């Protein structure tokens, strides 16, 4: 890409300059500002970036180099930013030239595994073809393997995946994601995956203060803001919400904010007597949050099958 092939090999490489010019620095800085918390993840990403950069520099000097195995596994609870980081990772790999296109194809078991005999292979292959040149992100990868049903077609998808991960290492990067404990079990029963995955990144749960910062930035992204009282209520909300079942970190926060906006709209609509200003329209007040069922703490969420697993709008 940089015309390394025809010219005589350079004898030195300025890693700093590479770091700047490849756009990696910009990407990592973006990551730092956009993602709140996740220190260990950012650390690992920086390490990975350094490794890839050095590997690329070695290549340009003609030193022996191996295309490093780039397949990864992201483990962590729901809502801890795995998909977001995968997206960033795709950008990183693209900038360093380890994947050609740098798009992210996000799939789950349903997209890979078929319904009847002979359906799985074409389905898996189609997904893989779409992911070529980019990153294939398999969410909740452990569902691929169902030990209780030996005729489950998931095994077939796993075999195709493994084969492609081995043979087409230059063409795509596979990221498996899911809960830590279930991923561990999955790797135990599929040693082929374990050995083909070099980077295991663990996503910690967010701290309460981080979640508050996240809710601020989410609102800002939507053009809303808390007033001071509302922020205090939000902090309490986060604290209480964490103790309730089906807590999904940032995703719970997003749902809570969506409902707060709903209540805010309702409040404005029913109570506003005169014209409302821009500030009024974009302020979330304490009352919008405090009517949440989380605060009454009556019953735990009764129906676990319910997708939006939190309180219903008041």
């Amino acid at each position, binding site marked *: 890409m940089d015309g390394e092939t025809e010219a005589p090999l350079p004898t030195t490489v300025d890693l700093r300059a590479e770091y700047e010019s490849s756009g990696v620095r910009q990407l990592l800085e973006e990551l730092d500002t956009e993602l709140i918390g996740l220190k260990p993840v950012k650390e690992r990403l920086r390490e990975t970036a350094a490794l890839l950069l050095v590997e690329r520099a070695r290549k340009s000097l003609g030193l022996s180099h191996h295309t490093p195995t780039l397949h990864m596994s992201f483990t962590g609870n729901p809502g801890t930013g795995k998909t977001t980081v995968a997206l960033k990772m795709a950008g990183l790999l693209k900038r360093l030239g380890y994947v050609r296109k740098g*798009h992210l194809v996000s799939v789950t078991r349903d997209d890979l595994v078929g319904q009847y005999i002979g359906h799985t292979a074409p389905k898996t292959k189609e997904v*893989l*073809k*779409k992911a*070529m040149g980019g990153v294939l992100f398999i969410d909740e990868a452990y569902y691929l393997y169902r030990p209780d049903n030996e005729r489950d077609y998931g095994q077939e998808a796993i075999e195709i995946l493994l084969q492609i991960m081995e043979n087409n290492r230059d063409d795509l990067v596979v990221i498996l994601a899911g809960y830590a404990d279930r991923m561990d079990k999955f790797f135990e029963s599929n040693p082929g995956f374990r050995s083909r995955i070099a980077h295991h990144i663990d996503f910690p749960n967010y701290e309460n203060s981080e979640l508050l910062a996240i809710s601020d930035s989410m609102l800002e992204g939507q053009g809303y803001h808390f007033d001071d009282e509302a922020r205090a209520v939000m902090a309490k909300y986060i604290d209480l919400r964490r103790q309730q079942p089906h807590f999904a970190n940032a995703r719970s926060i997003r749902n809570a904010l969506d409902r707060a906006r709903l209540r805010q709209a309702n409040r404005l609509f029913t109570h506003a007597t005169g014209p409302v200003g821009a500030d009024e329209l974009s302020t979330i007040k304490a009352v919008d949050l405090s009517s949440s069922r989380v605060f009454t703490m009556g019953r735990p969420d009764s129906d676990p099958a319910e997708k939006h697993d939190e309180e219903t709008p008041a």
Partner: protein
Amino acid sequence: MRITQGCFSFLPDLTDDQISSQVEYCLSKGWAIGIEYTDDPHPRNTYWEMWGNPMFDLQDPKGVMMELADCRKQYGDSYIRFNAFDSTRGFETVTMSFIVNRPKVEPKLRMIRTEVDGRSQRYSFETVR
């Protein structure tokens, strides 16, 4: 006899790299690639056998090249062509088509003259191996 159908057919056979860059071009235009094969290259044989469905939503030519490799494994001694489908008009139209694989010995096209109605001639073609 060298069959000349579709793009590039008067050029020497494309190498895999060249095929790959043509596919890259097609994908950059948002076209979907379908692979077809046949052992009968008669000009009137418009519909060749499909090798799977046309491939939509690809980003990278590698996916197509993998299918081509598979198709060659099974039908290496046939004609294989790529059709690029453009959907801008609301239906899929073949906008580009080129042969990517030929049999080792290509069949000939023989012209048959038939006399009808006095001395008028009817012409037809058939593929001869």
